[in-house]
């Protein structure tokens, strides 16, 4: 990942006292040394407990209901307590980046849908912006508004899944269905504007494919009103529930130092208390026009950086997204939605990195162009992949049921981890 020279310094991260963390936590084979709860050595344990016990190794996944896809976790467990965890990934690797080097610029767009399939609009946006940076073209303002509306609606949709599946991980089934009910509305909105429900390929290089159909913006406004009501219900049903709080508060605490050292971004980083959001830190598109807050973990129910905080950041972000969408609806004007581009797109030679705020964190696209119809090199910095790396650090010391809670709170999409 080579940030281009225009990238402003990450103000938030730079001012924080960063310790060189994670140095002594692994042995030479990258296996974890248990940190949070140090189990007794075997002979010690035999003396204390008068029985001979042994850590057990368990495969959690790739077919497990709570690993959110085909993640395989090799857990070392001492009874109910996890003493070590190694994630194994790559079960749905599809060579997306390599494909990017063999198809034309615009043809790569459908492939971006498929890594973080819960936030395809954001993926489209990230890739398009990277290519646009090389092209150096102006995007029409209406296109930018529509892009922002779609990206924020998609953020709500993605966080709704995070909310619903988190309830599911912790044994509450009903929030899942409620969240899908609202998500359904978002999907039907997307279906109306671009014709697809999951893999949109809607935001393209130079703007968006179609203008919004008549009545669409009004329906978005109606959705925003309805969603705010439903959002309160979610909190009553799950966020404040005593059992839910006791399952998530003080569980899987990720310290600020760890969060920075492991390169966490998105709600996982903000849950640890750092207000770092690319929409504010490096405002792209129209984000510096809008007023919105960056929710951070407050430790309201437990410690800063626990599962509840990460969950809560997502819940608050949904409301902030609604705020942004409302401001977009107020500001949108008639106009063209696509910049003038030649049919056979040739991108000037050079390289560019653009990171945008995906629902899961910083989604970066690094493209190198040789001035041809295809990219020479295309590389994706996936937020889920980086966020996943904290698991070996965060899981030891928690219980088996907490492992599920921690994985759920990090909210990975395996399609994007493996790409």
């Amino acid at each position, binding site marked *: 990942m080579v940030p281009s020279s225009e990238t402003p310094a990450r103000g938030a991260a730079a001012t924080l006292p960063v310790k060189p963390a994670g140095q002594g936590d692994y042995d030479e084979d990258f296996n974890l040394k248990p940190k949070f709860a140090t189990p007794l050595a075997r002979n010690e344990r035999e003396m204390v407990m008068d029985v001979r016990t042994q850590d057990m190794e368990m495969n959690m996944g790739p077919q497990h209901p709570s690993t959110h896809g085909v993640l395989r976790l090799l857990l070392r467990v001492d009874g*109910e307590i996890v003493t070590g965890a190694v994630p194994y990934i790559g079960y749905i690797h599809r060579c997306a980046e390599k494909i990017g080097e063999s198809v034309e610029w615009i043809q790569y767009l459908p492939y971006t849908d498929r890594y973080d399939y819960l936030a395809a609009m954001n993926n489209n946006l990230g890739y398009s912006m990277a290519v646009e940076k090389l092209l150096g073209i102006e995007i029409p303002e209406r296109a930018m508004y529509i892009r922002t509306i779609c990206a924020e609606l998609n953020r709500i949709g993605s966080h709704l899944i995070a909310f619903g599946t988190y*309830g599911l991980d912790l*044994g509450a*089934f009903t929030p899942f269905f409620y969240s899908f009910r609202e998500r359904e509305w978002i999907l039907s909105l997307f279906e109306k504007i671009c014709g697809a429900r999951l893999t949109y390929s809607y935001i393209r290089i130079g703007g968006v494919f179609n203008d919004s159909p008549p009545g669409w913006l009004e329906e978005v406004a109606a959705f925003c009103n309805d969603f705010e009501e439903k959002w*309160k219900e979610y909190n009553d049903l799950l966020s*404040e529930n005593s059992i839910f709080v006791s399952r998530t508060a003080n569980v899987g605490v990720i310290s600020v130092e760890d969060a920075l050292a492991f390169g966490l971004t998105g709600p996982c980083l903000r849950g640890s208390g750092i207000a770092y959001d690319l929409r504010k830190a490096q405002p792209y598109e129209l984000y510096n026009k809008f007023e919105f807050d960056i929710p951070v973990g407050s430790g309201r129910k437990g410690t800063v950086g626990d599962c509840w905080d990460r969950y809560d950041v997502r819940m608050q972000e949904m409301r902030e997204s609604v705020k942004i969408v409302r401001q977009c609806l107020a500001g949108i004007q008639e106009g063209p939605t696509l910049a003038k581009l030649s049919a056979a797109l040739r991108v000037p030679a050079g390289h560019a990195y653009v990171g945008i705020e995906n629902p899961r964190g910083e989604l970066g696209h690094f493209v190198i162009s040789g001035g041809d119809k295809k990219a020479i090199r295309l590389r994706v910095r996936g937020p889920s992949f980086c966020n996943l790396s904290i698991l070996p650090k965060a899981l030891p010391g928690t219980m088996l049921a907490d492992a599920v809670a921690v994985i759920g709170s990090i909210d990975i999409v395996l399609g994007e981890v493996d790409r």
Partner: protein
Amino acid sequence: MISLHVMESIGGQARRAAPGTNWTIDLIEWARKCSLSKWLANAAGYEEAPVPPDWIVAAVGAGIAVGLVLAFISVVAMFSIWLERRVAGRIQSRIGPNRVGPFGLLQSLADGVKLLLKEDIIPSGADRSLFILAPALVMASALGMFAALPMAAGAGFTDLNLGIIFIIAVSSLATIGVIMAGWSSNNKWALYGAMREAAQVVSYEIPLGLSLLVPAVVAGSMNLREITESQSSWSGACWLIFQNPICLPAFVLYFVAALAETKRAPFDLPESESELVAGFHVEYSGIRFSFFFLEEYGAMFIMSALGVALFLGGWNFPGIDVLHGGWLVATQLLVFVIKSLCMILLMIWVRWTLPRLRVDQVMVMSYKYLTPIGLGLVVASAGWEVLVAGGLPFNDRPFWMQAATPALVVFVCLLLGWMLRKQSVDSAAAPFAARSSAPGAIQT
């Protein structure tokens, strides 16, 4: 109606002899005299069919009783499964099974047929005998609990003086089956489920037993029939929760402990699907799996029925005493089953609302909260009976004392309803002066 007469005669005879001896003798007499038996006896050279020995009589009686219970438990369990799926559907803004039969009522039957026809897999590494025995043991405990259940006046299998203790004791048998299943499956997830079940059931027997002591204290008996009969005044509305103000919290406590005993959410740790995939029955398939399934819902019904018998008046219902004879028994049976199903409905409602507790929190819940509460309630109910009511039988107490408890119960329900009107948790929480420290957010 035939089965009702049978049930009635079971209950009538139960006190004198082993369950169902007399009507079994009648049945066998009838069978001896029917023409087929005569023809067979003549063909074999006898004057008439021989009188069978006692053990055959006992075996036939027991067989018929088990058949009745099995049929009843299967029907109730299938209905509960249907109820659960429909209620869950409606709660979650969807419809639930609606294709097989009217309102999908036959869905459970279809699923049962499917399970019967599926391959019965025994894993190669499994301990075969234990693996096969476990579902049978689990099922046996569900059947056994029915023995002490007073379903209607005079219609029960036995009339045990220690009915409460018997039901708790037999319900623990299922735990052994679950541990056997978890151990013999040779699967780590199943083993986890079994260990969790063992710990959970052992812990929750304490608050369960304590909560059951409250009705025993109030009614002055451990006999389920007698406790139910003590709730029959006021023409059948004098339920135990209206007799003593302590019985309402005791009922809530019983309900929570019963959820844990029957492995229902939020205590469904032994089979928690998001952690242990399916827990102790992860390796079971086909008919053996359906045994676990039936047992879960059968145990749910029995735990509900026990709560109904102890706290909610059993078969008593206002105005039921105008009926007589067979109609009375039939209506009582119906009232009892409907009340139990209502409690099952409550269990379902809770399950589809709450998340699951963690394994240590389940223990904390039992030992830190429920057990002290249970102890307090036992002492408080005894105190009320002795100090406030002066040890008088309920019907001899002054009117204000009889009316105080229903008034209190109604007031508490109205108060909670009023508080729940539009309340969101944020503003309603912590009436007991929470000592929360200031949030320490790191903002940059």
